[in-house]
C-alpha cells in the first residue's frame, strides 16, 4: 500500500560551520499527510529549501517518485521543480501584493501556458481561450477555499488568514502531486486554524495530493498528520504516528529541555 513519493537519504546542509541539516533521512508515502516538527532553528525550513532546490549545496540525495519514475531532484532546476508535481508555500507569505488575488493564482499556472508573448500581444483566439480555461480553474479553487468574492482585490491589505489561503490556492493551480507547506497555521486564530485543518483534509481528498507540512501548533499537527518526523539541531529524532511521537522520550526532551 505504501508507495514512497519523497525520499531523503542522508541529507546534510551546512551554512559555514553551522550544520543546519545533519544526516537526515526519511520517506514520505503517497497520499500521506506528514508533519515535520522541531524547535525553532531546528532546520525545518532548510530541509524544505533543499527539497525544492533553493539550496543545491546539500550532500546526500533527495528523490521524488512520480508515476513510478524516480528522479534525483538535484538534477532539476529550482524553476523546474513545480513541473515535477512538487510545489511549496513559504513561512513568510510570498505573494505579489500589487496583483489581484486571481492574478496571483494565475502565476501558479505559469508553466501551463502554451501560447507565447506574441499571441498574447495579438490576443489570438487560442491565447484568450487558454487564459479563460485557467481563469475558470482558478475560480473553482477560490470557491473551494471560500474566497471567490475577493478574487479581484489586491493581495495587499488582505487579512493574514486570507493571504495564507491564497498561497495554498496558488499551489493548487499547478496540479500538484505533492504540496509542502511551511507553517500554514502560523498567525491564524483558533477558528481559522480549525478551518485550515478541514481544508487540508479536503485538499488531500479532492486533489489527490500528498502533503508535507511544518507546523509549531502541536494540536494541529497531532490532529491532522498520519505520521510525524521530529528533528532537532538538524538531526533526525523520530518518525512515527502522532500518538507515539508524543510518547517519544527524545522528542519530549527536545521540546522541554533535558530535565523533563
Amino acid at each position, binding site marked *: 500500500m505504501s508507495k514512497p513519493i519523497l525520499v531523503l537519504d542522508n541529507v546534510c546542509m551546512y551554512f559555514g560551520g553551522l550544520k543546519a541539516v545533519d544526516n537526515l533521512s526519511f520517506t514520505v508515502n503517497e497520499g500521506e499527510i506528514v508533519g515535520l516538527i522541531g524547535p525553532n532553528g531546528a532546520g525545518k525550513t532548510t530541509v524544505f529549501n533543499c527539497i*525544492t532546490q*533553493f539550496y543545491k549545496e546539500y550532500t546526500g540525495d533527495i528523490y521524488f517518485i512520480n508515476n513510478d519514475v524516480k528522479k534525483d531532484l538535484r538534477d532539476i532546476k*529550482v*524553476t*523546474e*521543480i*513545480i*513541473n515535477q508535481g512538487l*510545489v*511549496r508555500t*513559504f513561512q513568510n507569505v*510570498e*505573494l*505579489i*501584493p*500589487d*496583483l489581484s488575488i486571481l*492574478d496571483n493564482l*494565475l*502565476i*501558479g499556472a*505559469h*508553466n501551463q*501556458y502554451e501560447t507565447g*508573448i506574441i499571441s*498574447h*500581444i*495579438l*490576443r489570438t483566439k487560442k*491565447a484568450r481561450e487558454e*487564459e479563460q480555461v485557467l481563469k475558470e480553474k482558478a475560480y473553482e479553487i477560490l470557491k473551494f477555499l471560500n474566497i471567490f468574492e475577493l478574487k479581484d482585490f489586491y493581495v495587499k491589505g488582505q487579512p493574514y488568514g486570507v493571504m495564507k489561503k491564497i498561497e495554498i490556492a*496558488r499551489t493548487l493551480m*499547478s496540479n500538484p502531486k505533492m504540496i509542502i507547506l511551511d507553517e500554514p497555521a502560523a498567525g491564524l486564530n483558533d477558528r481559522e486554524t480549525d478551518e485550515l485543518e478541514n481544508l487540508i483534509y479536503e485538499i488531500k481528498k479532492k486533489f489527490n495530493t500528498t502533503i508535507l507540512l511544518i507546523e509549531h501548533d502541536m494540536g494541529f499537527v497531532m490532529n491532522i498528520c498520519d505520521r510525524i518526523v521530529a528533528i532537532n539541531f538538524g538531526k533526525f529524532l523520530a518518525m512515527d504516528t502522532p500518538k507515539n511521537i508524543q510518547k517519544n522520550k527524545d522528542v519530549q526532551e527536545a521540546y522541554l529541555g533535558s530535565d523533563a
Partner: protein
Amino acid sequence: MKILNQIENFFGTLSKRLTKHPIVPFLIFGFVIASIGFLPHTGFIRWGTMGIYAYIVIFTVVAMGLNLLLGFSGLISLGTAGFVGAGALGLGVFMNMGIPFEIAALLVLIIAGSIGALIGLFSLKVEGIYLAIATLFVGEILRQIYTQVEIFGGQAIRIGTVRFLGFINLSMINQTQRSFLFLIITILMVLMMIIMHNIVKSKTGRALMAISRSQHAAQAMGISLLKYRLTAFILATLFATFGGIMYGLYFQNVPTTAWTLDLSLFVIAMVVVGGLKSIYGTFLGVFIIHGVPNLWLKNVFGDISYIFSGILIILVIIFYPYGFIYIWYDLKKIYFKYKARWSKKKVTDHE
C-alpha cells in the same frame, strides 16, 4: 416584432461588447490626441507648439518601456536616451543609404533589441545600484558614438521627406503633411499602448511582477529570473528605439547631441511623476514633465521652469509615491464613498 427584438438584441450586445472591450478607451484616447494635430488649421493652437505635442506622444512610448522595467520588473536603466537616439539616428543612417522607411525601422529595432538582450544578460550578474551604473555607461558609450563616429555626421542627420508605406510622401515642412505625420505617430502610440496593455495583462506581465516582488515565489512557481529579466530589458529597449523611430519619422532631422544622461533622467521622472505601472499615468507624466514647462511655464519663467519639475517630483515622492495618476483613483474612491452615503441617506429619508 420578433425580428425587431432580435435586431435590438444584436445591437445591444454589440454595443455592450464594444464598450467593454479593453482597447476601446485607447482608441478614444488616440482619437482625442490625434485631433490636436489638426487644431492648428483652425487657429486654436499655434503651429509652433505642435512639436511639443509630438514630443509628448513620442516620449509616452519611450517612458512606457521604462515603466515595464521600473514599475513592473523593479529594474532600472539610465541608458534610455541612448536607445531613443539609436532609433532616430539609426533610422536616419539607413534611410540615407536608400533603404525604405519600414525596412530601416525594422533593422534598427532588431539591432537595438539585441543590445537590449545583452544588457539583460549582464543584469543577471549585477543588482541595484551597480546595474544603474552599468546602464549609465551603456548610455554614455552610445552618446559618444553618436557625437564622435563619422557616419552619424556631425551635428544632425537629415532624413527629409519620408515615403510612408511606399506611396505617401510626408514632409514635416508642409503643414497638411505635418498633421498627417502627427496622426501617424499618434496611431503608433496607441498601438504601443495596446501592446503594453496586452503584455502587462498576460502571463509575461505577471511574471515580470513576480520576479520583482518575490524572487522566491517566482522561482517556486517556475518563473525563470533569467528569462524575464531578459524580456524586460528587450521590451524596454524596443519601446525606446520605437520612440526614436517615431522621432525620426516626425521631426525628420535628428540631432546627434541630444541623447544625454539628462534625457534618460527626464524619462525616469516622467514614469515616477505620472504613474508606475500605469499606461495613462505614463502619458500624464510625460505631459507634466515635458508639456507643462514647454507649453506654458517657459513663456513666463524661462529656463527656470524646470524648477517646477523638480518641485513636482519631490511632491510626488512625498504624497503620491506611485505617481500622480493615483490621485484619480483616490478621487474615484471619494466619489463612491459619497455616492454610497448619499443613497443611504435617501433610503433613511424614506423611512
